């Protein structure tokens, strides 16, 4: 599966994205499992609100972190997320 650039991306309704105080990081929770996220992965997933497309997310994060050229990394991570069922289109 690959990301369709036309469609908005939303975080899965059957997973939960949550800040863990004890671990000082964001995690994804799902039945009997947990994935620990680094900061950039968490920032990307927080943008998956069911309204923004891939291009919107890239623009948003490039502005937020005053940088450019994030498209390849964000796209690659979202594809992993899609194949793991963390996000949907």
């Amino acid at each position: 599966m690959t990301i369709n650039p036309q469609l908005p991306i939303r975080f899965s309704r059957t997973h939960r994205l949550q800040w863990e105080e004890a671990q000082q990081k964001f995690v994804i929770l799902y039945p009997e499992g947990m994935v620990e996220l680094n900061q950039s992965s968490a920032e990307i997933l927080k943008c998956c609100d069911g309204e923004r497309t891939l291009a919107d997310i890239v623009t948003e994060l490039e502005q937020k972190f005053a940088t450019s050229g994030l498209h390849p990394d964000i796209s690659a991570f979202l594809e992993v997320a899609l194949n793991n069922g963390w996000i949907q289109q």
Partner: protein
Amino acid sequence: MAGYNNNQIKPTPPRWLLAELTYSCPLQCPYCSNPLDYASYKTELSTDDWKRVLTQARKMGAVQLGFSGGEPLTRQDLPELVKHARELGYYSNLITSGYGMTEEKIVQLKEAGLDHIQVSIQASTQELNDHIAGTASFEHKKQVAHLVKKHGYPMVLCVVIHRENIHQMPEILAMAEELGADYLELANTQYYGWAHINRDLLLPTQEQFEKAEAIAQAFKEQVAGKMKIYYVVPDFYEDRPKACMNGWGTTFLTIAPDGVALPCHSARELPGLECPNVNDYSIEEIWYESKTFNFFRGFDWMKEPCRSCDEKEKDFGGCRCQAYLLTGDMYNTDPVCSKSPEHGVIGQAIESARVAALAADEKPLVFRNSKNSRGMG
């Protein structure tokens, strides 16, 4: 309390809390992991006790929470506990037989904040399911699975695999697909508790395992992206032990119905651990300071061949309960390991089960119920 040595690194906090709310259960599965003498533990923690346990463990960093048993639905305070867990930020898993579940309760638990329901089914046919469960429950379980999906929970179907149902693997997979399972847990029986005493009747042959595993693996590829398969390996046919509990006292905390804290749900079977009770100590004291939780932490307790083994940080010597049940010494290498001098007991168990399978006068299964339990004391 003993406490960990100061020259050791402070243990990692618990991540997984298994709350065994009760030992009472309307089913009688002959592979139940509850202790054989469960009927002698009559007291159950109160609602307030459980709330305190959940609060304390969450504060330390526990995040995955399993409500289990017995059958957790027999506790009338389940929705209240789920609500408390949700407020604390746990991801709550309900591990149920489905028995006693209604649509009203499914909605009520969802509103209380339950994240997921795992429904167990014993086989792909009514006849075998009801025989193994010791209760007529098959159609109701399938109905519950539908309702779980209908109300937006991720649905996990759990099927424990053993010699009586392993030939149904293709039908079990078809059933999971038909029910729309998001996850399918194919749990090869682990031989503790009731499964240990029924092992001759439950342990499949190597040929049966290999055939079933090949079918399950092919299915896993076929449904990739739609359904996730958790395949719990049958360690009797492995040559290295499982990294049991991800290492003793590193990740998992089980609280038994009477408040006894255990590093794994079978640890009650081990001698001399003096397992602490949440009525006497806080979870933090239990986790860091108790003799029980420090007993097999790290590597200092190991005997050879584990002590000098270059794989000890990978599997932690395997399972302490299995070492105890099969070799009589809980400090021994898990005999599943081919490096264990007692590895022969695994071959003997497999052979004993094979002979039993071929015998015309097979013994009956010992079902998990209070009458049988009282005879085990």
